[in-house]
Each structure stands twice: as C-alpha cells, then as structure tokens.
C-alpha cells in the first residue's frame, strides 16, 4: 500500500488502513530517536514551515524535532511574527508561504477548519497541528501509537476519556480514531462539557466517572482549562476534582493493567492526582516520546518519503 494523502487534516479522512500504515511507520521511526546520532537524511532538501497561530510548546517542539531528525529544513512563524498582525488574511498568508515553495506547512490555528481552508488553496502538504475545537490528528495518532505499543492492539479495548470534551479537539480526534480502529470509547464530564451529538462520533456518554472508568483498559484525562472557569462550565476546581478527578480509588475500578494518559499540560490535583500521574501505569511521558516518532512518520509519508523508499 502506498500513502496517497496530500494533507493530514483530521482523523475522519483517514481510513483504517491509512491509520495502521502511519502507526507502523512511526514504530520504525522511533528507533532513530534512540540513536546517538539522531538524524537520517530521508527528507534532506525538503522545507517544512511551522505556522503556529496559537501558543504551543510541546506540539511545536515535537514537530520541529521530527523534521530535523529527518534532515528537513524548518522555519517557524508565529502569530506575533506573521503578517496576520498587520491585517493580512489567513488565506493570503498561506499563499505567500506557498510561494516560497515549502514542501509541508504544519499549521496550528484557533479557528476550526483553518487548516482545511488553507489546504484547499495551497499545493503543498498541510498537516493540521490543531485547529480550534475541531481536530488534532497527530495527537490522536500518537495516542493510538502509545496504546498499541503498550497493549499490542487497539481492537476491543475500552478507552475512557474524561474532561472538557466540548472544547477538546484531542477528544474528538481520539474518539473518531479509536473507534475506527475497533476500540470502545466512553466519555464522561458534566453536561456543560458534553457537546450535542457527540455520540454520533461513535462514543458512549457515561453519567458518572465511576461507571466510565470501570473495566477501562485506558483512562485518558483532559486538561481543565482554568481560564474557562468563569465560563459557567463548573463551579470550582475543588468540586470538579471531587467529582471528575482521577485518583487511585477511581483508578481501582479500571482493569489491573490500566494505562493512564493525558495530552498535557496537566493540572495536578485537579483532573489528575500526582499519585496517578507519576505512577507506573502513567503513559504521559511515553506519549511525548512517541509524538516525535509519529510526526516523523507523518512528514515521511506526506513529503514523499514513501515514494523515495519505493524507488531507492
């Protein structure tokens, strides 16, 4: 099978086979990061633009390291350094970037659909590094990679996602990806954080944290955005932690070899207790490690790596 997608915009548009191919490729890439010299020439001569219109530390760094380990040249522009602050539209900025002939644009933007709209206007590949509350495909893929690495499979697993689903692009992408790969996804949060019709993406909505976590193979906690507390989503962090925080007692309801995940950054003591976050079942740092490998795989697949591999 050959990877033919020009862009990675969301999980919805990836088939089960394409997801498997990405995950398999990422496994091969992971070894490169373990070498003393963490660099291969695969994407030498390719140019990758990091176009981040929203603050990001780990995702941007992860994409940059991934590009550099494949020997691609990277340039970064952020909101404060882009012409958008001068009033230029997103589409014009994207067209100008394309005119400099990059091979891939990695894009993060606060508006849902921004990467999709840009991809329609540019000939180079676009990788969505998070758009509004729509999608964060590379995060979902690295989550799937991490689960598959630890459990050996995705099919048949029960994955519980707890937290602010409404505002989470990670949750949407994870729900779509995991269910497509045969996992069962349950979600839980107060109704203020459950968007209308989320079950149409294939997940089950649980009323209580306890019922959601029971018999789970994976428990994924989402960050509570403290800046939203004034937004009527929940009364206090104290009450939220009491009702929806992951602690050892609740984790005891899950399967014995449960994995705990978090896309970060964590609010310790709010959605997750330190005893859980730092425990042996925590995959949180493995997710970060796998993120680089997974993003290397995405660059390799969209920037023509697979074509070279076939002909070299």
């Amino acid at each position: 099978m050959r990877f033919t997608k020009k862009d990675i915009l969301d999980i919805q548009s990836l088939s089960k086979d394409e997801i498997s191919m990405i995950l398999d490729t990422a496994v091969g890439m992971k070894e490169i990061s373990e070498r003393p010299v963490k660099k291969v020439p695969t994407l030498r001569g390719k140019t990758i633009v990091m176009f981040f219109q929203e603050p990001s530390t780990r995702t941007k760094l992860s994409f940059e390291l991934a590009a550099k380990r494949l020997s691609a040249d990277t340039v970064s522009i952020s909101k404060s350094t882009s012409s958008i602050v001068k009033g230029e539209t997103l589409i014009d900025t994207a067209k100008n970037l394309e005119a400099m002939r990059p091979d891939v644009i990695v894009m993060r933007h606060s508006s849902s659909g921004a990467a999709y709209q840009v991809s329609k206007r540019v000939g180079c590949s676009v990788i969505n590094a998070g758009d509004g509350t729509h999608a964060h495909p590379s995060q979902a893929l690295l989550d799937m990679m991490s689960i598959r690495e630890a459990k050996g499979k995705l099919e048949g697993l029960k994955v519980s996602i707890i937290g602010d689903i409404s505002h989470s692009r990670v949750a949407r992408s994870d729900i779509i990806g995991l269910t497509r790969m045969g996992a069962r996804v349950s979600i839980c949060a107060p109704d203020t954080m459950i968007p209308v019709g989320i079950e149409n993406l294939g997940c089950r909505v649980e009323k209580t944290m306890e019922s959601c976590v029971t018999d789970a193979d994976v428990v994924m906690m989402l960050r509570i955005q403290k800046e939203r507390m004034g937004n009527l989503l929940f009364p206090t962090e104290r009450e939220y932690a009491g009702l929806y925080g992951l602690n050892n007692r609740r984790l005891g309801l899950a399967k014995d070899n449960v994995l705990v995940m978090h896309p970060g950054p964590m609010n310790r003591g709010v959605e997750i207790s330190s005893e859980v976050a730092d425990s042996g079942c925590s995959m949180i740092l493995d997710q970060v490690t796998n993120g680089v490998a997974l993003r290397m795989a995405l660059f390799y697949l969209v920037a023509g790596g697979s074509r070279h591999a076939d002909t070299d």
Partner: protein
Amino acid sequence: MQILIKGAQVIDPGRIDGVKDILIKDGKFAQIEEPDQIKPESDTQVIDAEGLIAVPGLIDVHVHLREPGHEYKETIESGLKAAAAGGFTAVCCMPNTKPVNDNAQVTSFIIEQGRKACAARVYPAGAISVGSSGTALAEIGDMKQAGIKAVTDDGLPVSSSQLMRRAMEYCKTMDIPILVHAEDKDLANNGSMNEGPKATALGLRGIPNASESVMVCRDIAMAELTGARVHFCHMSTAQSIDAIRQAKRKGIPVTCETAPHYFTLTDEDIPPYDTNFKMNPPLRSEIDRQAIIEGLKDGTIDMIATDHAPHNIDEKDVEFDRAAFGIIGLETALPLALELVGRGHITMEELVEKMAKAPAELMGINNDLVSGNPADLTLIDPDYEFIVDPDTFISKSRNTPFAGRQVKGRAAMTFGNGIRVYEAK
C-alpha cells in the same frame, strides 16, 4: 402611455384567479378583464403573457441595502435592481447602515436614493433605539413622517425588556409595526452555526434553538401586554413556530416571516467550513426545516422574506468563525419558494399571499390588482429552468449557498408604477 398584458394567469388571492388581460395606464391599473375584452389604443404596448402568472408586486420585508456606509457590498440602486430582477416590486430595508437609520435625515436619504434607482420601491425601516444601541428610543415619530414603514434594531436584539415594552407602546401609538430580531446573544454565545452533531463534528461553536425561541416567547408576552403589532423576523426553529402558533390562537397580534434557506437547507447541507452557508440565525436541523414548512402550510408563518445580506468576498473568505453572517437572497427567493409549490406544500395562491399580500399588509400598503392602484406587478415564468449562477447576479455581492442549484421559475418582468423595471433576457 398604456401597457396591455394579455393572457396571463392572474392571481390576486381572494379576489382574482384566472386568465385575464390587464391594462396599465399612466402608471396605474386601469382595467382587468376577461381575455380580449380590452381594445388597445394605437400607442398601447401589448405584452403577450401567455403561460406567465401575473401577481401583485412581490414585497420583501427584510433586506439589507448597505447604503449609506457599506456601498462596496451593495448600494440602494444595486440592491433595488437586484430586487426587481428577483420579481420584487418593493423591499423593506433594515436600518443597520452606517450611520444607522435612526433619524429622519437618513430615512429621507434612503427614500431619495431609492427614487433615483428606478427599480423596486424602498420602504425603510427605522431603528428602535438610537444607534441601535438598545438604550434609548430613536425618534420614531419623526422617521415615520419621513417615510419609514416599520422599526427594528435588526441584527441586534433589544435585550432590555423594559426598552422593548416602551418601544411597543410607543409604536402602537404611532401605528407602526415592530420587526423583532429574536436572539438571546448571551445564549448564542458567539456561536457560528446551529448547535448539533454537525457543529460538534466540525468543532464549531453552536447556537442553540433556544437562543431564538426564548426571545420569541418574551416578545409574545410583551405583544400581549401592550397590544402592539409585533412581527418576528427570519424564524428558523420549531419551538418559535410552536410559540407563534399558540399566540395566534390566543389572538395576540403577531406575525412572522421565514427565509427560503430555512425551508430549503439544513445544517447537514453545509460543506465543511463553507462560509456561504453562514447566516444568523443559522441553518437548523431537519426537524426545524419540517416545522418551518408546516408553519408555512398552516398559516402560522405569514410571509417569506429573504434577509438579503450582501457581503464582500473579503468578509467571507476567512476562517468560518470569523466570517460575516449572512447570505444574499433577492435573486433566488422566487424559484426557491416555487419549489414549495412544486412539492405541493403550498398553492400558488398561498405563495402570492406570503410574498406579496401579507408583506403589503405589514407595510401598511395596498397592492391589490384593482383599478386606480399603482401598477406594481410581477410576471412569473413558472416553467423556466436554470442553474443558479452568482456571476449573473445584479447584486454587488455573491455570497449565496445556492450556487449551482438547479431551480425552476423566475420573474419574467417586474413593473413598478407601471414602468417595466426588469425584464428577463
């Protein structure tokens, strides 16, 4: 100068329904007779209208003409010509111009520009509050003398219940209807499409049905309290229609309109992030669409208006949540409304009621096809099939979700004051 329109199917609801000849003289209807009863004089211009439907001039009670202030989107002239091309002989233009039409000077300017356009007529709506800021009543009496036919803070709900009460009481005194933009902005929460599974999947913030219906319910209560004439604009939800149906049963003096997109499209029809499908209120669910059709059928919805909202491509070719709300509709409304007739939801007579008679009544005018009335007339070609092509629009803007749609029926000719202001090619 005389015009004789021969052999059209003439429909003036409750009054005329049959093949007739219509004689227009000096800008007024002179005679409407059985075929071949009118003998034309030598200088009479004869129009063969066989196969066409002649109806009282269509009136769109909800249009944005953008002038003064945003002439790059639409001018009074381009908007009124687009209206004539869509078969409308008159439109009611909303006051959210720059400056806002909250005083007699702006009203007079609009009327004067409308007169110069030599196209459809314009009936300006004045603002309810100064600057549409929702704080103090505008000079409604003064504007009425200058020519407004209604008041509204269009696009901006009157959030203060007390101000709305006083506005209704004042407008009752002035015998002028209040056009209500029913929206609880707080509940709408800066959303950009209908709250539902599609918005969730696209990651777009949703606008719940209740953001419309809570204000409909409030203003029904206020209409009952004050006895004012209250008209609800662009109704989009099943709950609103239910509330208005009950209010009418109780005899509360309310009317309402919907727009063609609400009975034609749903949020599921929105191509990903296509801003030509972004309007306020947003496209709703299939349940709502069906409720709108039911409301049109049983008479709960009195009229069809377009909410014609021209925007330049600069305001639309951006991220979905940052794009301007609104679509144009003057040049697509008639064929879309005729789809209702084609599908058997309403009769042709009911369509004329909703697009000509009820709007005229709301505006306080008489557009009956009777001798002595100004000859405002629309000739409809019900069989003409075409594909909507925004490049052929007369409006200055192109923001329509209907590009490429196969439709049937259009205005063949539009007459205002007996002058042919539009003729289809």
